[in-house]
């Protein structure tokens, strides 16, 4: 086998294991009977019908809201943090850096348990549910947003800010007309990472849900205790496709790919 043939085999193998389960799940959702068999027997949309009932749509909408707000707040917090970390050498910088990027190293499970205890001890029990989830998700998604913004700040061509200043732009106008357009794709990428990370999180959410306020992942997990049904397959496909659609839209609009795949155009 030639080297290229070998590479092709490896790529095919990786794709098989990445896409295989997804395709199988999708196929199972079209089964005619209430059995999760593959290849599917017959064809029916009844499981999709069930997947679109409020029982499933509500947690999906909940997840969508949670992820959107998580992306928004993470990005808003990440901007000043990334600026401070990338640009200034200040006292306590190491501490801020560790606190910001820490959750990346910590199992989200631990963060979840910690947050649950915190909310209970300080008497915020009533906030467990959406609010606690939002706080927790911002904590675990912030590192992604900070990192992408900081990286895009570091890859800013040198001297463009000084050039803008010498041409008469105040600091604010330099930010608005030069810095912001150049780090935009980094900001968007950070927001997308945060959204996807929040939308797919199970570990942290497990501890902070309450009845009626649970994301789709937790709902799926709960349902699994009663066994796997084709309904679940349909729900899984929806859960899978939603973030993909989002990434595709953002990619189309703002050239996210440059950022994700590291092909930044430089002068």
């Amino acid at each position, binding site marked *: 086998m030639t080297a290229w043939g070998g590479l092709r085999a490896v790529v095919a193998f990786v794709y098989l294991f990445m896409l295989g389960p997804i395709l199988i799940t999708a196929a199972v959702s079209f089964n005619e009977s209430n059995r999760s068999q593959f290849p599917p027997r017959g064809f029916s949309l009844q499981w999709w019908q069930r997947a679109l009932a409020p029982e499933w749509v509500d947690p999906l909408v909940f997840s969508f809201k949670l992820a959107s707000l998580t992306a928004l707040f993470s990005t808003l917090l990440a901007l000043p943090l990334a600026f401070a970390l990338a640009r200034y050498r200040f006292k306590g910088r190491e501490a801020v850096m560790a606190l910001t990027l820490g959750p990346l190293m910590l199992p989200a499970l631990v963060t979840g348990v910690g947050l649950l205890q915190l909310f209970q001890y300080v008497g915020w029990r009533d906030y467990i549910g959406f609010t606690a989830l939002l706080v927790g998700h911002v904590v675990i998604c912030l590192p992604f947003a900070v990192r992408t913004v900081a990286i895009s700040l570091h890859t800013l*061509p*040198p*001297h*463009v800010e*000084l*050039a*803008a*200043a*010498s*041409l*008469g*732009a*105040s600091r604010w*106008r330099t930010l608005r*007309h*030069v810095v912001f*357009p*150049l780090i935009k794709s980094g900001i968007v990428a950070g927001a997308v990472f945060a959204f996807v990370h929040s939308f797919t999180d199970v570990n942290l959410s497990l501890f902070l849900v309450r009845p009626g306020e649970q994301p789709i992942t937790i709902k799926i997990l709960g349902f699994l205790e009663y066994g796997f049904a084709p309904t679940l397959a349909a729900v899984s496909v929806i859960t899978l496709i939603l973030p993909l659609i989002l990434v595709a839209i953002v990619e189309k609009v703002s050239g996210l790919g440059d950022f994700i795949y590291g092909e930044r*155009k*430089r*002068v």
Partner: protein
Amino acid sequence: MSEPALRLAGIEKRYGATVAVAGIDLEVREGEFVTLLGPSGCGKTTTLGLIAGFFPPTRGEIYLKGRPVANLPPFRRDIGVVFQDYALFPHMTAGENVAFGLKMRDLKKAEIEQRVREALDLVQLAGLAERRPLELSGGQRQRVALARALVIRPAVLLLDEPLSNLDLKLREEMRVEIAGLQRRLGITTVFVTHDQGEALVMSDRIAVMNAGRIEQIGRPAEIYEQPATRFVAEFIGRMNFFMRDGKILAIRPERARLATEKPKTGFAARGTVRQVLYLGATLEYHLALDNGERALVEAQNDGNADGNVPRFAAGSVVWFTAPAESCFGMPAR
């Protein structure tokens, strides 16, 4: 006498214990082209940054047409800067890059368009206004950067090694072009370079910098013909140094000659040819003098080995000679 366009008075810049600029006084007249020349780390780029206002001086004042500006931020100074890496805005077209400074001055759209067109014409980039920096060659980017700095009609134009990223041929073309443009527009210019050739060709006056200070300032010929210190003599062109009676005697290699016999007048020292280098237009003779000193003679290649410049072979014993008017002394430091 009228106020100089730019005046630095006792400018110092320290970073903690490190002294980047150690007290500079400099006056640049209206329309003058002054070059800050020196090796890397001599403080020339820091001085430029101080004039532009990218950071404040530790001590001293900067006057622009008599107005003290040391405490003004760069965007209030009215100074055009061309950076070594051009620092074009990659998300804007060439035209938008040039228009940026005018937009920041809130000029009317029609005037901006007109001035951008004129500026691009000036640097011979008419027709490339819609290109992005990424789609331009190095030389074209350089021209956009120049147009962008000139279009705001700054009181002073600062050029920070703008030619060092170009290839040799383009660099030599741009030298002449920038110097020509500067004279035509009569714009006061401070140019920073470590390239003595650029400095000699382009400048009205050269300030040779070393360790944060100006060692000597003068017209290019003055700097070359009468270097005030050993540092200047070594940095610009090449120089033979001989210790005589506790003083340094300096002789340019192209003013020295080789002779078979000791001449009656001028400087002479006997030695042996160690090496002859053939450089095409010139020949270089590297000598070891009898007293142990080294000497260099640069001779025109006149195509005649037996003419007035004999092509001495390595190993031959010769006299290193120079007319008295080509020798000058400087204090041994």
